[in-house]
C-alpha cells in the first residue's frame, strides 16, 4: 500500500499521488493548495476544516460539482477541476466593485438590475458566469439505499468520551462517527507520537462488543423530536430512532478574527490531525507555526515535529515547565500573542504576523478556544448559551433527550 501511486487529472494535467489519501491532501503534496475561490470576493481558499464541514475544498470531481475533496479518496483516472473557472479576466464582479467600496461598502446589492424584466433577463444571463457559479452535474451519482433502524441508545461521536459512553450504555447501541474507525480526532495523532494507549484499547472493545454497532463515515445531518436522527453516509440517507441520544461530538476548530484569516494554510488542530495523522500528509521540512495554548497546542506541535516539520510553537500563555519539555524534543517554543494578520504569496499563506513579530510559514495551526458542536442538540431542543470564554455556544448540561 505504502508505495502504490495513482494518477489523477487536475485541470487537464496529470498529477501523480499516493493512493489511499484524499484529493485535497494529494493536491497539497503536489503543491496545489488553492482548491476553490470564495463566492463574493474571489479569494483563494484551500483545505481548512478537513472534516467535511466547510465549503473550502469543494471541487468538481468526475463532472460532479460541490464534492468535498477533503473526504474523497483519489482513484486512478479521477478528473478534478476547480469549480469557479468561469470568472472572466480572473476577477469576480465583486472584486471589480471593490474599486467603488467608498460609495458602496457592502458591495453588490441583490435588488439592482431586477427591473425592467428585459434588463433583469440579460443581467442574469451575464451574472452567472461572472459570479463563478459552476455548471450542474449531468446526472446524480447518489446511491439510493435507505433504511430505518431502532436502537436503545445512539451515541454521536466516537472520540474517547463517545467510546466510553457507548461501552457504559446498556441495550443496543449505535455509535456514529464521521471517521472510518472509532477513536476520534486526537486518536490518530496520539498514536503517531506513541502516547496514550487508552483510545486503542477502547476502540478494540468497541469493535469486539456485541451490543455496539459502529457506523463509520456517517454523519448526523438532522435531529427530529422525539429522538429521531437523519444519518448520511456513502450509501445515502437513513433514519434511526432511539430512546436515548448522547451527544459526544466534541468541538470545532476556531481560526479567530484577523486580517486574511481565510488563507489556504491556516488550519485548526482538528484539521491537522485528520490530514497529517490520519491521512499521513507529507509535512517534512515544511515551515509550520503553531499558535495558542492547551492540549491541542502541544499535541499539534509534537505531531508536526515527529513528522519532520520545522515547528515554531508560539505559546500565548507562559508555562515554563512545558516549554522546557518541548525544547528538549527539538521544538522551538516562544511566547507571544495570537495572530493579528496573515500574509500571502501566490494565494497561499507565506507569513503569520503576531503583535510584535512575524514568522515565515506555509502552514499555521491555531489552537485554543475551540467551539463546541451544537447543531443537532439544538434541533432536539437543547438550550444554547453564548459564552466566549468557553468557546462559543454552550449546550445546557441539564438537557437530556429521554423520549
Amino acid at each position: 500500500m505504502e508505495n502504490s501511486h495513482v494518477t489523477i487529472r487536475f485541470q487537464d494535467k496529470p498529477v501523480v499521488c499516493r493512493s489511499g489519501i484524499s484529493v485535497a491532501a494529494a493536491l497539497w503534496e503536489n503543491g496545489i493548495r488553492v482548491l476553490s475561490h470564495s463566492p463574493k470576493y474571489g479569494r483563494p481558499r484551500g483545505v481548512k476544516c478537513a472534516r467535511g464541514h466547510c465549503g473550502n475544498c469543494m471541487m468538481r470531481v468526475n463532472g460532479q460539482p460541490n464534492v468535498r475533496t477533503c473526504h474523497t479518496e483519489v482513484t486512478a483516472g479521477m478528473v478534478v477541476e476547480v469549480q469557479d473557472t468561469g470568472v472572466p479576466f480572473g476577477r469576480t464582479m465583486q472584486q471589480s466593485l471593490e474599486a467603488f467600496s467608498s460609495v458602496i461598502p457592502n458591495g453588490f446589492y441583490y435588488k439592482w438590475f431586477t427591473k425592467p424584466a428585459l434588463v433583469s433577463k440579460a443581467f442574469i444571463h451575464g451574472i452567472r458566469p461572472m459570479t463563478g457559479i459552476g455548471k450542474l452535474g449531468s446526472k446524480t451519482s447518489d446511491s439510493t439505499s435507505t433504511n430505518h433502524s431502532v436502537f436503545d441508545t445512539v451515541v454521536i461521536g466516537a472520540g474517547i468520551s463517545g467510546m466510553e459512553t457507548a461501552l457504559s450504555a446498556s441495550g443496543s447501541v449505535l455509535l456514529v462517527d464521521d471517521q472510518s474507525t472509532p477513536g476520534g480526532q486526537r486518536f490518530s495523532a496520539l498514536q503517531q507520537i506513541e502516547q496514550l494507549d487508552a483510545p486503542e484499547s477502547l476502540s478494540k472493545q468497541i469493535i469486539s462488543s456485541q451490543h455496539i454497532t459502529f457506523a463509520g463515515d456517517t454523519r448526523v445531518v438532522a435531529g427530529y423530536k422525539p429522538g429521531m436522527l437523519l444519518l448520511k453516509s456513502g450509501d445515502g440517507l437513513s433514519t434511526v430512532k432511539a430512546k436515548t441520544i448522547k451527544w459526544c461530538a466534541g468541538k470545532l476548530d476556531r481560526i479567530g478574527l484577523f486580517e486574511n484569516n481565510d488563507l489556504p494554510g491556516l488550519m485548526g488542530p482538528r484539521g491537522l490531525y485528520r490530514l497529517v495523522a490520519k491521512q499521513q500528509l507529507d509535512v517534512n521540512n515544511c515551515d509550520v507555526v503553531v499558535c495558542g495554548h492547551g492540549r491541542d497546542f502541544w499535541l499539534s506541535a509534537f505531531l508536526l515535529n515527529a513528522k519532520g516539520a520545522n515547528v515554531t510553537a508560539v505559546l500565548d500563555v507562559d508555562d515554563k515547565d512545558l516549554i522546557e519539555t518541548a525544547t528538549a524534543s527539538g521544538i522551538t517554543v516562544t511566547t507571544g500573542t495570537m495572530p493579528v494578520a496573515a500574509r500571502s504569496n501566490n494565494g497561499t499563506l507565506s507569513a503569520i504576523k503576531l503583535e510584535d513579530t512575524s514568522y515565515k510559514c506555509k502552514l499555521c495551526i491555531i489552537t485554543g478556544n475551540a467551539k463546541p458542536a451544537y447543531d443537532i442538540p439544538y434541533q432536539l431542543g437543547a438550550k444554547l448559551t453564548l459564552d466566549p470564554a468557553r468557546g462559543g455556544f454552550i449546550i445546557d448540561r441539564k438537557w437530556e433527550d429521554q423520549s
Partner: protein
Amino acid sequence: MNKTILCNCEDVTVDDVNAAYADGFTELESLKRYTGCATGPCQGKGCLSEIAEQLAELRDVKPEEIPPMNVRPPTEPLTFGQLAALEVPEPAEEK
C-alpha cells in the same frame, strides 16, 4: 486585498457585519438574512459563534443575551436525489 473574514462560505467580512449593523440589522436572524452569513455549505459551523460574539460587542451587551439563530435540518447540504430516495418511517401514534 486584506480582509478579515467572519463567514468563509458566503464571504462576509467583519466590516460587512459592522455596516449591516449600522444599517439597522441588529439581530442575529436579520443579520443572517441581510449579509448571508452562516447560510453556506457549513451552515454556521464555521462562523455562528464568531458572528454572535461580534454582535454582542456591537450591541455592547453580555454574550449570553444573544440567542442562537435557528438551526434547521439538514445541517449540511443534501441532494434532491438523496432526499427523494429516503423512506420516511410512519410517525408514532399521537398521544
